[in-house]
């Protein structure tokens, strides 16, 4: 893509990266208007041109860091034998005729009408970072350009630039950044997620920066007055835009600390039995937290759910983790559905790849599963995705796509469509050229097409 590319007219003019400060007013004019003019954009304004009918208002992404084994969960192969199934050979029926899932997921089996399983995800990349990049950006690593992930794109199209004025930042990660992965790529730090830190599974969810144990509200107020009183330079340089930016950043921060922000993160406001249903662990309570955030209007929540890189002790780990996964996700589906939020909330659950269908019994793995990008499963629900369906399939042993390959770009393009984001939009690279939001077939990208069968 070059500067001369003609197709920037209907695209997004990305404003210079920057803080939350400049968001509401400044961005509308100034730098981006100039950039738009230079590029020949018709509107010249930084904000957004999605304005297509959107079914999904928010996304909850459950990121299974490390890659969850598809054979033990959503693509069971009970006939493949011990070498493939190990100790988890059984498949169980669900509340949808003809759909079976792994035996460790009984709660999700009761909710199968609410989600669809994609059993033919594929990209062929077997390393964590490059596969993560692939699944979250739809692009292959190694291009000159570092692309933003879906969350950052949603934050661009649905966040402050599009008039979002929620108390909580529009893009939140529970609880730690994905690491080794720049969520925002060339979009820059303005679209970075707010990562909460802390642990929602603890007695009190200590959201880093929002909740400070041991500092009373009164002391917070006293401190803030002291900060104003001692702000000698800020007073002397009143009117300096940098000083203004800092002040605004601090005011926004105080809205969260002293205002209702802290209450949103306070899980004790939920009933005990509901908290039990979600599971009193980090993942379960993260799911509950995600629901609370979506209720507040947050656009994109990522639950960074670690621990799926099971090279060793695979089956022990599955027995420990799958019940908590099962309970958390099933409760989230039921809860969102019960509150009428599932229609507008898109759930996207997958990892960077699957795991080797054939169990590695040999040392040093002694019963582990390796990385596997050839075929793996993903689960989607809500936000315009139909439930109770299976898309695509893998072969008898779950080693290759049998029918209907779904590439990351297909998944992402489908989500953009449901979110009302034009998949043909262009983004503005800071070096001054336009970049297509998603690659097209003519860029040599493999595609199986959007997930029309469930949209």
């Amino acid at each position, binding site marked *: 893509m*070059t*500067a001369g590319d003609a197709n920037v007219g209907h695209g997004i003019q990305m404003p210079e*990266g*920057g*803080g*939350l400060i400049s968001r509401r007013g400044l961005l509308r004019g100034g730098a981006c208007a100039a950039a738009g003019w230079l590029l020949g954009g018709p509107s010249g304004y930084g904000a957004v041109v999605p304005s297509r009918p959107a079914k999904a208002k928010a996304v909850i992404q459950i990121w299974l860091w490390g890659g969850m084994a598809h054979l033990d969960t959503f693509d069971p192969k009970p006939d493949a034998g011990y070498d493939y199934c190990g100790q988890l050979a059984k498949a169980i029926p669900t509340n949808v005729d003809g759909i079976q899932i792994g035996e460790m997921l009984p709660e999700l089996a009761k909710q199968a009408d609410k989600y669809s399983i994609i059993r033919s995800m594929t990209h062929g990349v077997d390393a*964590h*970072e*490059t596969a993560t*990049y692939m699944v979250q950006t739809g692009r292959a*690593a*190694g*291009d*000159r*350009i*570092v692309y933003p992930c879906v969350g950052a794109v949603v934050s661009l199209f649905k966040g402050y630039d599009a008039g979002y004025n929620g108390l909580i*930042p529009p893009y939140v990660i529970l609880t*730690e950044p994905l690491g*080794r992965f*720049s969520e925002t790529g*060339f979009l*820059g*730090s*303005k679209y*970075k997620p707010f*990562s909460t*830190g802390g642990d929602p599974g603890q007695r009190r969810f*200590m959201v*880093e*920066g929002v909740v*400070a144990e041991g500092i009373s509200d009164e*002391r917070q107020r*006293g*401190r803030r007055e*002291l*900060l104003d*009183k*001692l*702000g*000698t*330079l*800020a007073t*002397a*340089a009143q*009117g*300096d835009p*940098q*000083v203004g*930016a*800092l002040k*605004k*950043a*601090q005011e*926004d*921060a105080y809205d*969260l*600390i002293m205002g209702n922000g802290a209450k949103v993160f306070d899980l004790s406001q939920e009933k005990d039995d509901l908290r039990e249903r979600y599971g009193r662990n980090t993942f379960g309570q993260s799911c509950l937290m995600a629901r609370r955030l979506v209720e507040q209007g947050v656009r994109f929540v990522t639950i960074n759910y670690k621990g799926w890189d099971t090279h060793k002790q695979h089956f022990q780990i599955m027995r420990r983790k799958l019940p908590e996964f099962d309970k958390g996700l099933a409760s989230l589906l039921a809860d969102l559905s019960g509150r009428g939020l599932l229609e507008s909330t898109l759930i996207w659950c997958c990892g960077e790849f699957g795991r080797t269908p054939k169990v590695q019994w040999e040392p040093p793995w002694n019963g582990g599963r390796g990385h596997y990008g050839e075929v793996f499963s993903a689960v989607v629900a809500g936000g315009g995705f139909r439930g109770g369906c299976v898309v695509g399939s893998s072969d008898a042993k779950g080693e290759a796509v049998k029918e209907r390959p779904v590439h990351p770009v297909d998944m992402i393009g489908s989500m953009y469509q449901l979110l009302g984001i034009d998949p043909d939009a262009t983004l503005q690279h*800071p*070096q*001054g050229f336009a970049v297509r939001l998603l690659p097209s077939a003519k860029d040599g990208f493999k595609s199986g097409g959007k997930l029309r069968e469930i949209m």
Partner: protein
Amino acid sequence: MAVGMRVSLMAAAMMTVLAVAAAAKEPVRPFELGQVAAPGCKIDELVFTRLRQLGIQPANLCSDNVFVRRVFLDVIGTLPTPKEASDFLQDTRPDKRAALIDQLLGREEFADYWSLKWADLLRVKAEFPINLWPNAVQGYHRWIRTAIKDNAPYDQFVRELLTASGSNFRNPQVNFYRALQSKEPKAIAQAVALTFMGERADKWPAERLNGMAAFFAQIGYKSTQEWKEEVVFFDPSKVAPGAPAARLGTPVFPDGTAAKVPPDVDPREVFADWLVTPKNPWFARNMVNRAWAWLFGRGIIHEPDDIRPDNPPSNPELLAWLEGELVAAKFDMKHIFRLILNSRVYQLSSIRPSERPEAEANFAFYPMRRLDAEVLIDALCQITGTTEEYSSPIPEPFTFIPDGQRSIALADGSVTSPFLEMFGRPSRDTGVESERNNRPTAAQGLHLLNSSHVRQKIERGEKLRNLIWSSGSPEEAVTRVYMAILSRQPTAQEMRGVREYFESGKVSRQEAYVDLAWALINSAEFLFRH
């Protein structure tokens, strides 16, 4: 250059001063001295003349306490210790600012801090999408740091980067050709144009880029037996530039002249010969403009890496003069730093004398900018006596950074650190200056105002505790906290404000000190270079 012209410039500058004096504002204490008495050097003449033409009055001169903090942060990326600050403030020599500048240019941290800047431009990073890998990162960073420490002439520095061949471990400057997202000749040409010419070649016409790319069409890469070792070399077996089969056509310099590359000569040599000469219109210009931008937050051409005919310098005479100085000094970078740092222009106050955008573009004041991420965390560690832990678990081999390592001295841009990311450390993907983002955000606000990370530093940092609780009156303790954080003494008004807080009865004495340090750390005066 006619002598007469110089004299008339001088005269014009003198008149500027008179005009300025008439309208000068009262200095704002404790940040300003009086007005600028007279231009002290050529830079002052050129800048003040331009400001006079625009009818803009420059800011007052900054006070000593502002200067000591500013010059430490700008030159060595390090906050002055209370002793360093008070030594300077008590020094009565008239040339103490110049003496401090000389001293700082010789410090070890100078090499650390400017290696950080160069490592940003050269994309020194182990991982995706640059993928230098840890060993090469260490070697490359050490090579850069040594060159800066030894003040290697800039032309030699660039020539070595552009023409080196050999192993990425043993001859680490070859990593220039590895620290790229693509090793295609055009991508290499773009990186060279960006880094050393300040131009964005993706805006060039195709034939111009092709002409330059042809110089980089015969770079070979091969791996060795050693893990992640890679040899970069001149590979004549790749289609010779100019040969009929060469896709890119013949090598043409970016100024449009065709190059003659004899057979079996590495075309990179020919390109470097063209680039690193005094006559080259880009080479010195790009460097002095960047150096200016590094010290002032904006270039004479701005953005500093977007030089093009339709983006003219705000002060062409100033830029031309600096270029001449760099060439005359045989590409001695410290000479350029010394010239700029000693100018009155650099030593102006940061309090804006005018709201007009031309005031900023023409350096009528020293612009405030938030501290770089690495400088900020180092300063917090220095004040409190705490350290940060850094490690890099992937790729292998694991990198563990020794405890107490300064963040400005980190070699690898991919070392994980949520703090550095939150505060806008560049990703080192593109080498574009604007990758570094020093704008304040609400998330940063939350972190500094209320996170356990910063709280623990302030509440438990042993050095800060000792500072507070060593002998003397509460006023002396408050003064020590001010010296450690803001490098100055509190004003009488501030001391009153602190006393009121201490005596309010709402907080214990210990909490009061913690809150004082917290408030100063969250002040614009601490968070900004000013």
